[in-house]
């Protein structure tokens, strides 16, 4: 399946946050916003399809817990760690190409 660049970036952002340790959905959303200085944020529940897709693909593991009220915690799996490393390298390559292209345009 073709994944758009923005979708891919969002997935990698979530994986990067979870690399620091397990977190609830809202903590992931807050952390992404803080760590990117507000450049990326999840509004209107857009985080959940990303988390659920990553869970289906085995990149994160969701666990229900909590006393009285059920709460879901996500943690990174080994597959997710590998995906983050591969994805980050891919993105770096793609952005380098883009920056060279834009740099070339400016120079012209």
């Amino acid at each position: 399946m073709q994944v758009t660049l923005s979708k891919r970036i969002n997935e990698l952002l979530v994986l990067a946050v979870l690399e620091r340790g397990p977190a609830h959905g809202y903590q992931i959303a807050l952390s992404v916003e803080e760590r990117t200085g507000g450049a990326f944020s999840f509004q209107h529940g857009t985080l959940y399809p990303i988390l659920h897709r990553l869970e289906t693909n085995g990149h994160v593991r969701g666990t229900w817990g909590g006393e009285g009220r059920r709460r879901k915690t996500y943690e990174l799996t080994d597959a997710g760690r590998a995906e983050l490393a591969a994805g980050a390298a891919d993105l770096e390559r793609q952005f380098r190409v883009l920056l060279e292209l834009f740099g070339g345009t400016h120079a012209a």
Partner: protein
Amino acid sequence: MRPEHPLADVERSLAVPPRRRLDVLEEVDADAQALQAELERRGYGPAQARRAALRRVVPGTDTLAQLEAQHAPPLGRWARGTGWIDRVERLGIVVATGLAGAVACITILGTGALGSAAVLAWPQVIVVALLAANWTRAAKRLWIDGDLRPELRRRLWERQIGLIVLAVALGALGAAREVYGAFGAVEAEGFAPPAIWDAVGRVVSFAAFGLSAAIFGLFGWLALTPRLIDDETMEHRISAFFASRLPPNSSRRR
């Protein structure tokens, strides 16, 4: 009027199996509460924190569509993938109705229950086709959309029961009509074993056809029952979820 829970609209709109719907509701609700508390801790006022938390976590229309695509049953995901999701119900009804109707026609023609009895035989064919169409609609909602809401479920079940009763009634009426016709023939022409056996065959075929239609209707629904029971349990838990999250003074506000 009782204030509505912020996720009530999500519950109404999200067309996924109730088990998945409950998971989404509980996850979003817990995150909304925790995020609100976190924002308040950071200096937001309660109302402002509530609004900001809900804006971040409550799924919007696009998000709901994505969640539906992700949490649809496997058949539904396949139908979405092939782009047949909008046509699948109509196609299923046409195929099931056509097959059931064709089987019914072949049975009726094969047993020779036509002629003067056609007035009752053809309605039986129509009832069988309607049973198949009704079942297909319920099955599509359960196994493809994954979302058969209690109200529609009740309507489809009532229709199914009505059609089953109608099938049995038509079978009984057809059989009675044949018995009446046979007695008339005996009175007019005397006792003729071949003709009597022929009449008995028509009586039995009418009754058997009505009974078969009823069994088809009942067993078809029985195949859906395990999922229906599970869904009903989940619907109760969803109701309990909303009931437990009503504001404490909501009854006084009415």
